[in-house]
């Protein structure tokens, strides 16, 4: 087991190194080059020359790459020009991160709570009208862009029926104490129930929109996996020896069918982040995704660097954790 984890860690380091090279190449090929990327709008010929010398842009590429790595490791990414002008780019990421964590966790929770039971019942009644309908809906779901789902939810629930807030993370009138940066958790910790409730109301619509992405996958995998298990010999054996339907369903079918579902849940990180870029933009929800969208559009390269690198690292780490979790559950993986 330890050897498996070590091997995976080593592989991860290689991937991160390759990614950092890609990021370096990307920065070098940005319109205007790395100097413009760091200076942004504040560039003057003098500053440009000074920074070029300081960055050693006359030096050979491997040396430049090494210096780039040093700056990355020290967390020096430069100053944000557009997202939060004047703030250090790393701080922009850190202040925005809790908002997206809150959003992603709730979205994933919704997808699990709705997707698994629905997938299970669709499989149990495979071929029935219920099953066909849900499968058709999941096909349509593939064709609906997530930002339009977000727009629809916003239009009906926030604008037309006025049930939930239109945008943001917290109403302006509320004076909430910040502890963790997760607004709902903060409200609960400080017993400011109105603040927690208000933050939750702001979360519901974006989370629902975002949940459609993992929901589709979780639903499909649950359905396929339950269908798979229902066909297994041990289920037939259980039926043959006269176990009650309830026991067969809970112990033999559901428990075995859940393994692949559990692992795919961890793998939704990439899709969630791409989806967060779009949903957060629609709801002006100030998270990492909105920062990413703004910095892409307004060319805030300092922030972009941090966000892309962070996204890549988070993604790789989650993948590693999922692999390890899976190896714990299924010993066959370890010997691969």
């Amino acid at each position, binding site marked *: 087991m330890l050897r498996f984890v070590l091997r995976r860690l080593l592989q991860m380091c290689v*991937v991160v190194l*390759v990614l950092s090279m890609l990021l370096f190449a*990307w920065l070098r*090929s*940005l*319109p205007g080059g790395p100097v413009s990327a760091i200076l942004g709008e504040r560039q003057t010929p003098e500053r440009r020359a000074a920074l070029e010398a300081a960055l050693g842009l006359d030096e050979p590429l491997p040396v430049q790459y090494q210096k780039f790595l040093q700056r990355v490791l020290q967390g020096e990414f430069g100053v944000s020009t557009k997202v939060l002008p004047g703030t250090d780019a790393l701080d922009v990421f850190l202040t925005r991160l809790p908002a997206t964590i809150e959003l992603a966790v709730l979205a994933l929770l919704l997808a699990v709570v709705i997707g698994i039971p629905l997938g299970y019942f669709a499989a149990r009644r495979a071929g029935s009208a219920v099953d066909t309908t849900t499968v058709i809906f999941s*096909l*349509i779901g*593939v*064709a*609906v*862009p*997530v*930002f*339009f789902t977000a*727009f629809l939810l*916003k*239009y009906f629930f926030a*604008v037309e029926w006025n049930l939930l807030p239109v945008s943001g993370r917290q109403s302006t009138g509320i004076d909430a104490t910040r502890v963790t940066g997760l607004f709902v958790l903060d409200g609960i910790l400080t017993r400011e129930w109105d603040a927690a409730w208000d933050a939750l109301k702001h979360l519901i619509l974006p989370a629902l929109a975002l949940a459609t992405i993992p929901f589709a996958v979780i639903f*499909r*995998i649950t359905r*396929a*996996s339950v*269908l*798979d298990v229902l*066909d*297994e*010999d041990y289920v037939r054996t259980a039926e043959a020896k006269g176990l009650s339907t309830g026991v067969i369903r809970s112990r033999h079918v559901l428990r075995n069918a859940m*393994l*692949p579902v559990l*692992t*795919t849940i*961890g*793998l939704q*990180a*990439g*899709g969630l*982040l*791409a989806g967060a*870029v*779009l949903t957060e*933009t*629609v709801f002006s929800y100030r998270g990492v995704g909105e920062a*990413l*969208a703004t910095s*892409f*559009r307004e*060319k805030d390269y300092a922030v*972009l660097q941090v966000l*892309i690198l962070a*996204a*890549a690292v988070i*993604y790789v780490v989650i*993948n590693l954790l*999922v*692999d390890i979790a*899976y190896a714990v559950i299924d010993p066959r*993986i370890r010997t691969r």
Partner: protein
Amino acid sequence: MSDPIDPAVAEDVRRPSYGQRRRDRIDALAQAGAVDDTPGVSLIRGAWLRLRRNPVFLTGAAITVCFVVLAIIAPWIAPWDVTARPLLDEVRPQTNPVPGPQPGHPLGGDDRGRDLLSRLIVGSRQTLIVGVFATLFGLIGGVILGTIAGAIGGAVDSLVMRIVDVMLSIPSLLLAFTVASLARSPSQWTLIVSIAIIQIPIFARLLRGSMLAQRSSDHVLAARSLGVKKRAIVFRHMLPNSIGPVIVQATLSLAVAIIDAAALSFLGLGNPDQRQPEWGQMLGLAQRYISEAPHLAFYPAGCIIVVALGFTLMGESLREALDPKTRR
């Protein structure tokens, strides 16, 4: 172990990583091109016989044909010029920012007084151009890489496939955003290139997989023993026989390309020129008028959904028809 219902999903059961999942799905499709040795109807003929009676395929094909015809004849059937602003006099920024439906303008106008119906009709062109060219370039890039990997094999194969696997493991939409941000002056070609790049690894892996399935087949062995040149074997025996799954994937990719293109223009990474209408861009601009004129978003979104659904239905039923597990 019993037969899994969906081979792509069943693969997930055993190998968990996201990139792996995408890789397995592609490989399952590649297998579909393997030669069926049993005598009888040919693969394509058999597939066509099944498709002809499949309502899902027929619906998808009908939508696709309508959309393509519409995009081709768009400038001639659009009632108004897309840059003309016949309703400009009715636009009141404070009270009535978006003119409603009226005689001559069944859907009304947009916030600049341009006819909405005409812009929707002509917008189909941009969507088709972006979708088709992005998929085409992705396909060409993927076919070149896949052929190199599948035909040469060995170290070249390993190298190409490593690069392809790294690309597959990056969430595709984020990769597209990153590529699009490199453009000095964004245009519709930014969309096409960035979406083509995220399609390349999919096609490359798919073609390589189905070429490997060909390499060990009897007809390639026969050609080789007859002393046919390697180049001729690759281009005249292996490639034509492995292209089927690639065509299926292209149909599915078209739907994804259209949605991804809409997402990119929605975020403002596409063509900044608003004179030529494009559905994703229209949808993005409509956000401003969510309370006054939600229909401004509903129409282009509806178009995107219907077209993407058309390609998805067609692609999924093609995939099922070519899948050896469903052949009877």
